[in-house]
């Protein structure tokens, strides 16, 4: 893992963990964080699909779009059913800020350098979100259906992390 990747990972981890420790998250806030986390990965994948010519990287990115759109569609349907309005909060704002910085960084890279940075960030990003889901978001969720969807999301993110690690190994 590069130093830059580690720093991004660490920043994202702080963004996810700090507010949760400061106060209990509500279900509308958790829903917003989870939805934001998915959208960030979709946006990153779309950027990769625009810039990368690597078949493996593009296939991975297409999978990220497909899976995270599926989860987010389910999340939207759930909040509608529960009459819950996702509530913006400091954690999701921090996630978005970190993602914007990463997108700008990736925007300056091309070719193999882009591919490596995108995939390395995917590894660290999924790892960070996995930690947040396990330690904070799932335990804090009150509604059973939301908790269940988050658990599905955790399994998905874990698989994506392993998948990203496989792709990263191929790029070395």
């Amino acid at each position, binding site marked *: 893992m590069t130093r830059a990747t580690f720093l991004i990972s660490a920043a994202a981890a702080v963004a996810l963990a700090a507010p949760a420790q400061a106060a209990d998250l509500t279900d509308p806030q958790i829903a917003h964080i989870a939805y934001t986390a998915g959208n960030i990965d979709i946006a990153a994948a779309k950027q990769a699909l625009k810039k990368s010519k690597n078949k493996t990287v593009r296939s991975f990115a297409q*999978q990220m779009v*497909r*899976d995270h759109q*599926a*989860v987010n569609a*389910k999340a939207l349907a759930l909040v509608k059913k529960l009459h819950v309005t996702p509530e913006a909060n400091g954690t999701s704002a921090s996630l978005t800020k970190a993602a914007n910085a990463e997108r700008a960084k990736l925007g300056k890279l091309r070719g193999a350098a882009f591919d490596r940075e995108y995939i390395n960030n995917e590894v660290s990003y999924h790892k960070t979100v996995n930690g947040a889901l396990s330690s904070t978001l799932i335990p804090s969720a009150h509604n059973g259906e939301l908790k269940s969807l988050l*658990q*599905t999301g955790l*399994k*998905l993110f*874990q*698989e994506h992390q*392993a*998948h990203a690690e*496989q792709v990263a190994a191929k790029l070395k």
Partner: protein
Amino acid sequence: MIARLPILCAAATGALLLVSAPGPAAAATHVVVIDQMKYGAVPPLKVGDRVVFVNNDIFRHTVTASNNSFDLDLMPGKRGVLRINSAGRAAFYCKYHPGMRGRMIAR
């Protein structure tokens, strides 16, 4: 070690199981559910059995032989059928989620 794959036919249509010709009298149909990014366990199989994979997950999955001899592509909520033609072992995985793996043994 993966022996020659025991699959006679594979189809990702829900209707196949209903319309295909009946198998030998001793043949059984086994349902294997895919959910939460995992394949359910495939029970021990006999030649002539059918294995129905039901994708209860919210994601698209495949049941793809490691040697590419069969490939079910299952959208969420869909099912596909494999018919066991001969004894052997088969390892399979999901093309979209390579961490998802399973295996089946037919005697």
